[in-house]
């Protein structure tokens, strides 16, 4: 017997009252007489965020329609068909000759199945479930999976970074040839940075992957991303933390981006991840990995890594804007923050009214670092007087750390020490290319669409 919540799942107010009055519930197959004519269908659960005056029916043709409760004169139950949420499992084939890869789940759906009756998307995650929906994986490796948590990407935080890092360390010790982490895309670059700092000298590839189009859609990028990332984990020679996502929007190849230089750059494009101020590590396509960088950590077979899973979350990013008032910084000081990453304008600037409060912050022992909101390029605070004055106040230029990476790095550094000099040393010592010595010419290449030559080249290359 369904309890009351399940019986009227999602219904409130007049919608629920009508169901109660008519003695019908969710999954009832009903004939409805309304002031707008007759309708027949199965009552579906109501979305919690939708209004409370409509009742949703799935009609015979598979469409859903909404009936306003006050138009319903009568609802007669003629049947009952509850949905059945079960996903088929097929045993993931084991092949002793293939490498062993560990897939960690954090909450996003990598693969899923649709329940057409309800429209619910049911995540597929166990090896058997994954094999059922992406059978190609069995040609690549022996896959094992472990679901660490079930949170949306935006809810990932220090606790999750730490758990993830420790589990990766364990997987390395246990001798897996590669690790894949399924992750929502929104904050994938934050987690990628965190793992780059927390798991150093990894002997194996650590590949983060997600999808921009949910896996219930035929056009989803999820299966290709999963195949490419699992292939990278199993077979690539690159033993670093990487993000493996679409290169172009076409189904052509994936790029492997370094965890410390990658950023999500578009709210919805498949090819949303870009490497900033550098070039990607490699591309992966049809079982082939083509490296673009020569300088990367190679795969080893010693099952050893340095795991430093610590984080102090009393750090904030302040995205500077003209007319910013000192109270923003003051509130951080008053609330006990230990570190501030400023995303400054141009080469790393903020306005004069902030000087005194920044001075106060550093005097009170806050760790204040400057990055650039231009995303590309280095902080350079000697060029203009503003920069020099800011440095005198104790604001430390953070080279070409990306603002989000600087934020993660500072949290990680403060997890190890509160000492100004020690933290500064950690912050400014490059770890896994978060700070690079030099920016190659082609590290910044935002070609402008609309220029005939650019369009012509793009239409030739980015099919």
């Amino acid at each position, binding site marked *: 017997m369904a309890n009351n919540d399940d019986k009227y799942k999602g219904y409130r107010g007049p919608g629920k009252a009508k169901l109660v009055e008519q003695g019908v519930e969710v999954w009832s197959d009903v004939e409805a007489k*309304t002031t*707008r*004519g*007759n*309708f027949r269908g199965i009552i579906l659960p109501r*979305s919690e965020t*939708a*209004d409370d005056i*409509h009742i*949703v029916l799935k*009609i*015979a*043709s*598979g*469409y*859903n*329609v*909404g*009936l*306003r409760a006050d*138009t319903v004169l009568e609802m007669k139950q003629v049947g009952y068909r509850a949905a*059945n949420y*079960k*996903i*088929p499992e097929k045993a993931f084939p084991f092949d002793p000759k293939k490498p062993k890869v560990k897939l960690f789940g954090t909450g996003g759906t990598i693969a899923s*199945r*649709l*329940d*057409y*009756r309800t*429209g619910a*998307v049911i995540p597929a995650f166990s090896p058997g479930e994954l094999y*059922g*929906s992406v059978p190609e994986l069995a040609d690549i490796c022996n896959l094992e999976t472990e679901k660490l948590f079930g949170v949306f990407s935006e809810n990932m935080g220090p606790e999750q970074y730490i758990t993830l890092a420790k589990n990766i360390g364990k997987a390395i010790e246990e001798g897996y040839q590669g690790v894949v982490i399924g992750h929502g895309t929104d904050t994938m670059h934050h987690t990628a940075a965190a793992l780059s700092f927390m798991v150093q000298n990894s002997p194996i590839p650590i590949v983060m992957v997600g999808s*921009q*189009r*949910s*896996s*219930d*859609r*035929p*056009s*989803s990028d999820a*299966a290709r991303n999963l195949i490419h990332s699992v292939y990278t984990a199993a077979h690539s020679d690159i033993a670093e933390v990487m993000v493996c996502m679409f290169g172009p*929007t*076409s*189904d*052509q190849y994936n790029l492997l981006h370094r965890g410390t230089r990658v950023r999500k750059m578009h*709210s*919805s*494009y*498949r090819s949303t991840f870009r490497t900033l101020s550098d070039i990607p590590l490699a591309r992966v396509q049809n079982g082939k990995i083509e490296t673009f960088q020569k300088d990367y950590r190679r795969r080893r077979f010693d099952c050893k890594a340095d795991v430093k899973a610590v984080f102090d979350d009393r750090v904030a990013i302040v995205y500077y804007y003209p007319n910013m008032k000192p109270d923003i910084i003051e509130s951080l000081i008053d609330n006990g923050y230990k570190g501030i990453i400023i995303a400054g304008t141009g080469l790393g600037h903020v306005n004069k009214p902030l000087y005194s409060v920044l001075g106060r912050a550093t005097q009170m022992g806050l760790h204040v670092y400057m990055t650039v909101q231009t995303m590309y390029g280095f902080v350079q605070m000697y060029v203009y007087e503003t920069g020099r004055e800011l440095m005198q106040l104790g604001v430390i230029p953070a080279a070409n750390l990306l603002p989000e990476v600087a934020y993660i790095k500072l949290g990680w550094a403060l997890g190890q020490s509160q000492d100004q000099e020690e933290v500064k040393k950690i912050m400014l010592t490059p770890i896994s290319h978060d700070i690079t010595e030099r920016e190659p010419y082609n590290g910044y290449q935002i070609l402008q669409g609309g220029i005939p030559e650019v*369009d012509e080249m*793009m*239409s030739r290359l*980015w*099919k």
Partner: protein
Amino acid sequence: MTASQDSRFKPFKKMTPEDYAAIGFKSGLEIHQQLLTERKLFCRCPAGLYTEEVDAEILRHMRPTLSELGEYDGTALMEFKTKKEIVYLLKNESVCTYEMDDAPPFEIDPKAVEIAAEIALLLNLNMVSELHIARKQYLDGSIPTGFQRTTIIGVDGSIPFKGRSIGIRQLGLEEDSCREVSDVGHRITFKTDRLGMPLIETVTEPDMRTPQEVAEVAEVLRRLVRATGKVRTGAGAGREDVNVSITGGTRIEIKGVPSIRRIPRLVYNEAMRQYNLLRIKEELNSRGITSETFQCEKAVITNLLDKTTYLPIVHSLERGGVVGAVLLKGYQGILAHPTQEHTYFSQEISDRIKVIACIMDQPNILHSDSTEPGISRGQWNRIRQRLNAGNDDTIVLVWGDLQDVNTAMEEIAIRAREATEGVPPETRQAFRDGTNGFERILPGPDRMYPDTDSPPLALKDEVIERLRRNLPEMPWDRQARLRGLGIDERTACLLAHSPHCVLFDNVLKASACEVRLLANALVRDLRCFKRLGLPLERLDESTMTRIFSAVANGMFQKDALWHVLTAVVKGEVRPLDEILAAFSPNGGEKVELDILIKEAADLQFRLINSAKSSRRNYLMGYIMKKLRGRVAAQTVAARLEEVLQGDGE
């Protein structure tokens, strides 16, 4: 009817309604009609901007998603087997990131919702209270997302037809798909300009009893939606799919019907095909072959044919291809059984191979019952031997790339086995000759699921009431009314189905002009202006009222009407009063007429070799044009007659 006894299906022209009733003929329509909106349904791209230019190409694949039972849906599996690369050609002006599935949808276009709701009311549908956007899966690549966003506006309506009523199951509002450019081997190419344009899909119940009725109902529905003046017209703006079944057969959906007048033949052929497939089933069952007892053998027999002179195989082998052979146990003669006009069962197999194994070159199969020239008797014998074929067996050969040939051999067996069960559920494609061919396996009803990207949208009482108050008259009622005003049948029919009908009523009321003059101007002159690409909005209601009031008050001659309208629609830069005055008789035209009659009298000698009637016509036209309608045609004709030379006609 003899159909049940006679194994031959009657020719198209000889079929009677009784014949169709005897085979249990049923047919329904799905009519797609683009709406006249400025924007596409779910994004802000302009609608109706068709182009041949291409700025970029995008490559995608479609992957089937697991269905409810954890199995892949039939269609999905088929599309996956074909392993097609899908290429989208796009032009920046007509397509944005939404259509290319790189951005979520914007809010549904409210204008499109209103037009769809208005049409739903015309069809007497029960209006839903809240629209829910659904995703309907399409894996053929025609929509880059792999699904169409679609929503139901109303259900369960009807229209009157020949003293009975035709049920309307539902009306949906959805986004249009891509236009296919080419489909060669494993690559299918689409144009994306049409993608995302708002479209309504009207689904009728299978209430039509003959192929002719299907066409008639399609025409009625077309006129009905056009009566709103808010739908697109022209090539591809309205498209029909036809569903056909007969007793013992299956509901078959025929897509891409090119025009309404081709419907009857197409529907006839499908009824005939189903009838014949049922005869084939009976024949196979009588031979003891059922889905369970069906037997076949498959082998790659390339080496047996390395010396063949049969060109299709020779060309394939030259390209490194292989030849596969499928032995169908007990199928002797079946592949040569007729299905549609000039079409045999072998075509059903060939079509499947073309679509599923992507072996496109025709012919793509050769079978041992064929009387067409092919491989030699000796070669057939060796193949028969290799496969241990008996006299009752049939062998089908297929050639091409090894992987494709393997898929093809599977498919031959699948289609042959289906023959033991009658008519497999399929979506079929209309051909110009009235026959149809396999397009894809009919998708199940379980391919719909809610679009989680779009919120539900209430269809409020106020909106429905407002639309209901302003509904256009039904075209048939309107036509009768116009006839009652003394307008001839043809003009009444044209006007009743024209978007100008409202203009007609309003101008007539305001100007009290002559009914037929106004009707003709709206039907004939405005059409002509439209064809010339002139901006009809210059002839808005108030302008038209002033013009027709002027002619009603005798301010200018009826004959000048065309000139006045032309001047206005071409955008002459002076006030309407001045334009009207320019065509008003002021005495000057009498002098002009005298001069022109003189000119005509001289001019006729240059035309003396032509008949008097031709000269009259020519000169009449000449004078009227110069006078720009300021003198009545009657007067001009009488004056001209005085000077025309010669007698007889």
